[in-house]
């Protein structure tokens, strides 16, 4: 009966709508709208005491962007931020991979406990944990140095690398490693030819979960880094809170977003090609 089938179809569509509408509305109000406001703000003039100048007085212009392009310090800080984010991601990967493998290979009962330990730091306040690092690094003479920033960044983001790697590695069929060994693969060949390629999705999602937040992070460099360790996150924060130059802050964060999207798009394109090869 066409009538009833289109009825159930309509009911299905309605259910889909009811389920997806609230999160969609949430995203529009709290994500899309602020982003658009931010984009618009980057073309405005700063107000005298922060905020934005009235549209009639200031108008719309590209001053903020011109400012960023003209002064090479912004490109330098952006590049440095990418370097710190990249290095943090790499260190997290090198630390998390063996750890995740170890967790996967421990007895099933102990695994849950180990995973719990990985996420346990989240149970205490972020700032308190960073202050704890200041207490550790101070006597070592490392506080307010790039090393301290890197250590703090790695510490904060390590669980975000471990968890996706663990979920990926846990799904690997042990029979594949046995087959590889049976067919002549030694320890290294087994890792690089079987485990590593199969874990790439986990590596990529872990890397994204570390790289992107590190780029925007300002608390760690502010508390642990020296005056020379200004990163893009600090710069953006400063424009809003200290310099009260909202348009410049907005422009900087849009540039950052564009850069992140470019990196993400590039890595997605790279892995797609690899998957097909």
């Amino acid at each position, binding site marked *: 009966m066409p009538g009833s089938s289109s009825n159930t179809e309509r009911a299905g569509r309605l259910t889909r709508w009811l389920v997806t509408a609230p999160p969609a509305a949430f995203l529009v109000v709290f994500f899309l709208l602020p982003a658009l406001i931010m984009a618009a703000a980057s073309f405005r003039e700063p107000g005298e005491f922060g905020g934005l100048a009235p549209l009639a007085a200031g108008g719309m212009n590209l001053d903020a962007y011109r400012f960023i392009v003209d002064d090479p310090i912004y490109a330098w800080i952006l590049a440095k931020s990418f370097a710190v984010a990249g290095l943090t991601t790499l260190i997290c990967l090198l630390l998390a991979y063996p750890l995740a493998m170890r967790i996967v290979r421990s007895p099933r009962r102990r695994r849950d406990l180990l995973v719990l330990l990985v996420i346990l730091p989240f149970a205490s306040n972020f700032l308190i944990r960073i202050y704890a690092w200041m207490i550790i690094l101070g006597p070592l003479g490392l506080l307010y140095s790039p090393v301290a920033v890197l250590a703090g960044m790695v510490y904060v983001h390590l669980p975000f690398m471990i968890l996706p790697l663990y979920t990926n590695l846990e799904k690997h069929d042990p*029979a594949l490693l046995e*087959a*590889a060994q049976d067919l002549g693969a030694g320890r290294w060949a087994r890792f690089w030819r079987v485990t590593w390629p199969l874990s790439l999705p986990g590596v990529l999602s872990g890397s994204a979960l570390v790289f992107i937040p590190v780029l925007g992070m300002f608390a760690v460099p502010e508390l642990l880094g020296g005056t020379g360790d200004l990163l893009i996150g600090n710069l953006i924060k400063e424009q809003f809170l200290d310099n009260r130059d909202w348009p410049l802050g907005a422009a900087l964060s849009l540039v950052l977003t564009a850069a992140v999207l470019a990196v993400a798009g590039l890595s997605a394109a790279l892995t797609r090609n690899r998957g097909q090869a």
Partner: protein
Amino acid sequence: MLNRATAGPTMALLEIRNITRRFGKLEAVKDVSLDIEAGEFFTLLGPSGCGKTTILRMIAGFDEPDAGALFLDGQPLAGIPPERRPVHTVFQSYALFPHLTVAGNIAFPLEMAGRGRDEIRRRTGETLALVHLEDKGDAFPHELSGGQKQRVALARGLVNKPRLLLLDEPLGALDAKLRERMQGELIALQREVGVTFVFVTHAQQEALALSHRIAVMNEGRIEQLDVPEVLYSAPRNRFVADFIGTINLIAADVVEATRHGLRLAAPGLGEIAAPPVAAVAAGSHGALALRPEHLRIAADTGRAGLKNHFAGTVGEYLFLGDVTVYKVRLDNGLLLEALATNAGPGRASFHEIGARVRVEWRHDAGVFLEH
């Protein structure tokens, strides 16, 4: 094609000498010895937990015996890890690499062996053709059917020409029709490449159909090692008789034993004539083992045609097309299974349930098994 052992003609390709393997208190393999000859299709057959897979893993190198030793081409295998043994395995789950294409999977052992690029391409192509998958080289394992995956696993195991190919219940995951076809392909493949196969299965029909020789295992020991025909027609004990095919066991005592045959007394039945068995003397107890196809069923009228004949009633029958299986209860209560071929002209006709029949068999049929 196969680079044969340089040693003397009497040496087997694989020698297993008195191996024992314990897991905690359990003795999975108990003092097993056997020789596997080059070019053979050898099967380890037994119920699950009989130790056959443990032996396979010790040959592959994933496990080591607690006592005893294995020799390949006369060289001890002890301490050599799996990756350095010229032995490859076809796993029950196939264990194909999901991130590699079919060609990539097959090239894997060649790459591990450090073969040159041209040789890898050539031999991968040859092996793909061998298993009739020429057009599937670029496909990924998840795009293949069960039978195709099976063939890729075989190709991957054979491509680097191992001295031994181990097959761990490789047909277990296939449906009945496909399994039958793959059995035929396996036999043809083994004949073509000449690689020695060691096959592990719990399916006795599969073992009978495929193997040159079969070791029937139970509880860590070899119960009997023989060619399929002998295993079937002359099982050495009740376990083998029972495990391979269907068997009727008639408890009996030996009244007289001569070179020409045995005279048995079966309680409630009377006298039975049976073929001679070495080392069985008058007075010993046991059972006469008879295959269903040895028994003939006739309407209970007229004179008996064969020496051993007993009256009974048809309990039930199963019409299987080519044959009909009858379950007949003899007058002493013993239930026998008999096979009747439906080779007569016209429509098959049956002895109906409840019909009085005579079950008879030749004096030289079956084998007497001592307790």
